[in-house]
């Protein structure tokens, strides 16, 4: 079992970037510990800005820095970053065209029993609705590294959601298939296509194995790039399938499922079912308990697919 969280990998990539480029700047909102950025702050004090518990100011200040040539990474819990400072993300980052990377840490239901205040189950919908805002949910630590290596080099704003806990590896170090803004085909199948992002990729992959054992051939697509959604990759992978199933750690509206439906409804109409968190405060529990409860674990996904194919 992998013990390295995606956020820890982010810290490593940002330290490497900061050593090469003094314009790399990280801002936190009393969140350097949650973001695994303590070692960055210690190693690069002149390229680190503590903003205190003030997410609006965090994002505006990051935009001011970026407007002066900095590559700003504003790192704050996804729940607060995506809603408390939503307008700053819209106006100061996307609309003003500043190179601010908005990193939502402890995303989804990572904070578990801390409750709805700390869950971000609407961040994909919120951020995707902003013109010019890209939205990424990397799956494992290896893909996280590839994504951040790409993001430190580009000049436009983006929102990235990272979970809090280590997730099992999906890819193998040294051979990670990654192309910016292109979904990764994890496995091919003939009956069903599973499309997942973030922490849901692993259970989707495991569900495909369970389904295979039961005689159902399922392909899996890692759609880490929720916006811009890889339209061609989706349509290509969906071609010929009886069913498309989306899986996401997000409310049922405006997330991956909605965006996949928009593409398939317009270009290649077919049946899609969307597995997501409920339109309600999430039950108390660890991520694994919550996912199991709502059928977002491998067994639940496989069950939903079989039910839909009956």
């Amino acid at each position, binding site marked *: 079992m992998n013990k390295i969280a995606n956020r820890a990998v982010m810290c490593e990539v940002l330290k490497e970037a900061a050593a090469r480029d*003094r314009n790399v*700047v990280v801002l936190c909102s009393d969140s350097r510990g949650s973001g695994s950025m303590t070692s960055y702050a210690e190693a690069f004090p*002149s*390229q680190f*800005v503590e*903003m*205190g518990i*003030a997410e*609006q*100011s965090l*994002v*505006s*200040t*990051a*935009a*001011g*820095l*970026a*407007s*002066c*040539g*900095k590559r*700003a990474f504003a790192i704050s819990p996804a729940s607060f970053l995506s809603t408390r400072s939503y*307008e*700053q993300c819209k*106006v*100061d980052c996307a*609309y*003003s*065209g500043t190179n601010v990377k908005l990193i939502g840490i402890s995303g989804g239901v990572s904070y578990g029993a801390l409750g709805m205040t700390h869950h971000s189950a609407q961040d994909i919908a919120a951020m995707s609705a902003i013109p010019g805002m890209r939205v990424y949910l990397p799956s494992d630590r290896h893909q996280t590294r590839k994504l951040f290596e790409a993001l430190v080099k580009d000049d436009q704003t983006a929102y990235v959601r990272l979970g809090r806990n280590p997730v099992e590896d999906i890819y193998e170090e040294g051979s990670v298939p990654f192309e910016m803004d292109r979904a990764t085909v994890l496995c091919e199948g003939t009956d069903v296509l599973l499309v997942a992002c973030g922490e849901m990729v692993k259970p989707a992959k495991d569900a495909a194995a369970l389904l295979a054992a039961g005689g159902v051939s399922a392909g899996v697509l890692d759609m880490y790039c929720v916006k811009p959604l890889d339209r061609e990759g989706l349509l290509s992978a969906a071609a010929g399938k009886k069913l498309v199933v989306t899986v996401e750690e997000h409310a049922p509206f405006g997330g991956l499922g909605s965006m996949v439906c928009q593409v398939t409804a317009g270009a290649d109409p077919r049946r899609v079912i969307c597995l997501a968190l409920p339109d309600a405060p999430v039950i108390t529990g660890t991520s694994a308990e919550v996912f199991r409860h709502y059928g977002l674990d491998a067994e639940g996904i496989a069950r939903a697919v079989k039910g839909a194919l009956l």
Partner: protein
Amino acid sequence: MNRLAVKAYELRQNVLDIIVSGGGGHIGGDMSSMEIMLTLYNRMNVSPDRLKDPDRDRFVLSKGHCVETLYAVLADKGFIDLDEVKAQFSRFGSEYFGHPHNTIPGIEMNSGSLGHGLSVGVGMALAARMDARAYRTYVVMGDGELAEGSVWEGAMAAGHYKLDNLCAVVDRNHLQISGTTEQVMTPGDLHARFAAFGWHVIDVADGNDVDQLNEAFDEAERTKGMPTVLIANTVKGKGSAVMENKASWHHHLPDAEEYRRISGDFAARKEALEHE
């Protein structure tokens, strides 16, 4: 004769023309903030020839609705073409609309939603410090805007980081759209409030007086170890009795008779200043 004081009335007429052409604008705040922006643009290290100069001073109009005055000042300094602004303001497809955006030469940041600019300025000032550059950052806010909590997040950060290269200006015209600032949401003792956040505070008795503003900006430049804010006491609708101190002129389209009277008032005050 103070050349800039006279110029302020020429530009007021341009603002009036822009607003009438576009079918309305935030004329009250445009008039109260005219001398603040005009004074700044005549002392800041900015030029249309050096739009991307890393050492240029930075300006953020946090009260972005007063963009008509910013357009008039930018046109006067050669960044944009006044006739084009007059012809295009608020027209279908125009680049010149009711809030600033940074695809227009000389505008650094998009604004319009209140309470963002001070924290943006904090970022610009921090960048100057990181890069050991001598440029200064100026942020103009409204007094009604100070009800936004995010303003005070920015004020806290500027005080915490002792950003003496950051200067904020509060256009203290005492009016907002629903009435006086005291009626709408008591701003209290602004001097004490900013001082409590670690700021050097300068009360400008007449924020429509170019000389008083220049003296205050000089003092801000001399002030080390803390950010400076000017509480510039201004008059909303400054320049014509038709609109001075009237909340109803926060956003307005003057009719033909009002236009004639306001224009006449501007000309009379300009002429009086020319003979001072």
